[in-house]
């Protein structure tokens, strides 16, 4: 076994929840070689015959690790060999193809092709790391206000816009919502004072460029929150520190728990807990520590590691401790400089919210995997040519350039990418982890739905109606029996699904087989099930691409289970 060089970025060892979800690399190789399912020719009649059938897991994975301080990484992206494969030369013809199908395709080596565009990418990043951040928490915890105020302090929102927000808020009689109006922009949201759909913004800190997603906290809007959290790498959990308010959010009906669990199930491992509204309780140290204790008692068994969770007291309304530490009331928090780097139970003394964001570790981006772009919004933008549609979403893996050809799944339309926009500025290329708007041409508008995937024409994403998945069941009141209907939440779409068969029951902690063909799956257990969806979805196996293999099952406003896709049946 080759010794893996120390990888920067996401920590590679996990425990508890993730042991069941993490496939052992040896398993991966063995399984993928044993069950090589080539992409069915019948699905891709419109494509030229030289369709590659190489499974993604068998390719050399050359993800780009986050920015090193020196610029010399531009020419030779660091190679992180995985799965015991040594860094072989780029020639792809030496790789194994499944028997019976030889590809006559001249494959362009991906790394060399994109060096120019990678240079642009690195320039764009300006030496900072790209991070996708989602803000969650119980309703009225102050998420939108906190983030709005942060944006104002970082000068992302100018004074004139802020003044407009303030007058608007005063007019509606909601003075305290003036910062929240930075992010809540529609009439409904402003008049009701709730965030209903996710809002996006971008800001820069010392070492990071952060794509911010503000999620709704209300129970009915959890599908939108799942959409936002699925795009995120890290999260901020906002809790209300007032007496009684924290308890309401934290007990079983509240969203604090549910959001934290959902975030974990969607792959977010680093969390900042912002204890908000501290100004109303006079920055009491006791209350802060009480909340920290309760939260850590809940977060640890949910799968968050101690080292990945930090706590910070803030006030979204007054803006204290967001960027600058606040001395007089927070003297107990701002200890002397010598201890400023030690963490005690996740509390880093003296750190402001922005400091904690700077400390987060960005994940590895799967740039060398084939291009996959999940659509989360479709509209016709003004100012673009006729016949083009604008689609917004996040690039899950790979990269794309202007004027490249791609294919839309599951309808198999061939499209051309006319332009790429990030934050309303045109760019020539974009890579995994970016939230972009693509203007595409050549698509039939009736074939375009939220949840479709635009992908590399040579490695199209598989589509499925019946899948086999491993799930972990949460605290539900009615056990899962064959035929249970559920809503399948995947990326930005939700679809009706039915749990057809219960294949196995597994032990929740160890993953061992407990029973075959169980009669039912009780709460807090784990199992393997077969799901039938009402409509085709584009997804990957979890072992191939992690981001495209996770889903949630919800029913009647409660989250039933979180799962990973282990096999695509049809």
């Amino acid at each position, binding site marked *: 076994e080759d010794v893996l060089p120390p990888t920067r970025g996401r920590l590679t060892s996990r425990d508890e929840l993730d042991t069941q979800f993490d496939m052992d690399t040896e398993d991966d190789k063995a399984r993928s070689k044993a069950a090589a399912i080539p992409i069915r020719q019948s699905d891709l009649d419109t494509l030229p015959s030289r369709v590659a059938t190489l499974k993604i897991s068998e390719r050399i994975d050359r993800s780009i690790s986050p920015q090193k301080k020196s610029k010399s990484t531009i020419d030779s992206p660091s190679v992180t060999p995985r799965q015991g494969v040594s860094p072989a030369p780029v020639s792809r013809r030496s790789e194994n193809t499944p028997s019976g199908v030889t590809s006559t395709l001249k494959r362009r080596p991906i790394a060399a092709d994109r060096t120019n565009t990678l240079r642009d990418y690195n320039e764009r990043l300006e030496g900072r790391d790209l991070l996708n951040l989602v803000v969650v928490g119980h309703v009225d915890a102050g998420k939108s206000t906190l983030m709005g105020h942060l944006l104002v302090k970082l000068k992302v929102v100018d004074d004139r816009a802020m003044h407009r927000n303030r007058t608007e808020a005063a007019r509606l009689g909601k003075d305290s919502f003036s910062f929240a109006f930075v992010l809540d*922009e529609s009439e*409904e949201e402003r008049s009701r004072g709730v965030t209903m759909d996710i809002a996006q913004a971008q800001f820069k800190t010392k070492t990071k460029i952060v794509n911010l997603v503000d999620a709704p906290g209300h129970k009915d809007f959890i599908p939108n929150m799942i959409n936002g959290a699925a795009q995120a790498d890290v999260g901020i959990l906002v809790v209300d520190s007032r007496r009684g308010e924290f308890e309401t959010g934290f007990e079983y009906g509240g969203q604090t728990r549910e959001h934290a669990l959902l975030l974990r199930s969607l792959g977010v491992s680093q969390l900042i807990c912002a204890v908000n509204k501290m100004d109303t309780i006079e920055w009491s140290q006791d209350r802060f520590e009480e909340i920290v204790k309760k939260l850590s008692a809940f977060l640890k068994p949910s799968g968050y590691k101690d080292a990945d969770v930090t706590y910070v007291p803030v006030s979204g309304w007054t803006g204290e401790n967001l960027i600058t530490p606040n001395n007089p009331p927070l003297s107990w928090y701002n200890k002397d400089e010598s201890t400023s780097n030690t963490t005690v139970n996740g509390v880093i003394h003296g750190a402001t919210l922005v400091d904690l964001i700077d400390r987060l570790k960005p994940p590895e981006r799967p740039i060398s995997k084939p291009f996959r772009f999940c659509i989360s919004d479709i509209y016709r933008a003004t100012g673009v040519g006729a016949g083009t549609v604008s689609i917004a979403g996040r690039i899950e893996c790979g990269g794309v350039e202007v004027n490249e050809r791609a294919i839309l799944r599951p309808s198999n339309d061939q499209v051309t990418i006319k332009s790429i926009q990030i934050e309303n500025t045109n760019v020539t290329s974009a890579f995994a982890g970016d939230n972009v708007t693509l203007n595409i041409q050549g698509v039939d508008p009736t074939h375009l739905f939220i949840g479709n995937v635009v992908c590399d024409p040579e490695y199209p994403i598989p589509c499925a109606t019946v899948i086999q998945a491993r799930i972990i069941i949460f605290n539900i009141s009615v056990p899962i029996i064959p035929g249970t209907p559920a809503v399948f939440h995947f990326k930005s779409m939700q679809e009706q699904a*039915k749990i057809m068969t219960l294949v196995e029951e597994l032990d929740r902690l160890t993953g061992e087989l407990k029973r075959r063909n169980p009669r039912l799956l009780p709460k807090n257990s784990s199992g393997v099930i077969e799901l039938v969806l009402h409509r085709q979805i584009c997804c990957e196996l979890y072992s191939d691409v992690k981001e495209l293999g996770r889903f949630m099952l919800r029913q009647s406003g409660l989250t039933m289970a979180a799962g990973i896709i282990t096999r695509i049946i049809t």
Partner: protein
Amino acid sequence: MRLIKKNLDRGLSGELRLEPEEQEDMWHAYNLIAVGDSLRASTVRKVVQTTDTGTSTTTRKRMTLTIDVKTVSYDSAACALRIKGCTIEENEYVKKGSYHTLDLELHNAFTLHKHEWDSIAMDRVEMACNPAHQADVAAVVMHEGLANVCLITEHLTIHRQKIEHTIPRKRKGLCAQHDRGMEKFFDTIIAAIIKHIDFSLIKAVIIASPGFIKDQFFQYMLNKATRDDERRLLENRNKFLLLHSSNGFKHALTEILQDPLVLNRLSDTKAAEEMKLLDQFMRLLNDEPEKAYYGLEVVEKANQSQAIEYLLITDELFRNIDFTKRRRFVQLVDSVKESGGTVRLFSSMHASGERLSQLTGIAAILRFPMPDLDLFDEHHHHHAEVTNEEQDELENDNLSHNPNRPVHHFDNTDDDQSMDNNRTFKENSRAEASAW
């Protein structure tokens, strides 16, 4: 449905003349007419006449035909029933034995002859002829971008229309597209409501959604109705009920039917009752799993100990072509009724019935807990098979005693004797289990 004539010999075989009056009667007829029955009704048939000169003309003639039923199919969207079979009686236009497809029409009486009118069929006829009408409810469940318009009658849930729009999300500074998309979406829903809902028959219109969409929609609808002077909507505005549901998919209907607001307005809707019972069964599965079982063999076993308090069964099982299986179900139902339990027939067109049919279609709530009933089932599949064969033998009066096994009397009317036999049966099974 109207019962015009009844002609039964000794309560078993015979014929009934019925006239369907409304759409639900088609559904009842679907459950009544089985393969092997004979059906006589007025229908249209193409008749080919060749003249001497060789030219053939086809004319469509209306005539009364009797056919031997071979297949029955029901179109749920149109509520239409098609029956295929061979003609039995000779006619001046039609030879005996030729195939014909009959479309049952409303207000056209038909005569149905069955070899055996069992209790289930008689119950169905009674249900159909019952003049008392329960509430018809229309429901619109929606979430952003998706809406389903359905009609809920006593026995059917008719899905009328599914509306799906892609609505652009709100973006920084550009909320106009979102609002416009929502308006177009609402317009389509309003058009669907006007088209599919007959306000003279409907007692209530339920609008259900998560979040605030329902309020938004209701406001928009009223504004639009006043603007366009849409009388029907304005007059019936107090029939509209706004409820909360968790999403806009079809199975959210089950949630709204359990809402206390709905139950107040429309008490005793069959759909709501069915849902309640199924919910009770699910809760028992969670809290006391030894009192709730599903699956035919398991339920039959539970019945032998007279343990069944509620039997939940879908009418889909009785449409089974297999005669022996159908008899099994009928016997199970009869024996449960005799031992004092309640039998609930779930309409498979309702969401609750669909759910139940996923679970094999038959489930039971027991009076007292019976542990590990299904464990027996797993290990003793062939054992169960054998006992059923014995049961068949008993019915046919072919009692040949197997010296190795005590005789089982599956007749539950005789209490003392059956109790004894049940005990020995269980002991035997347990002994065999340990040997296994």
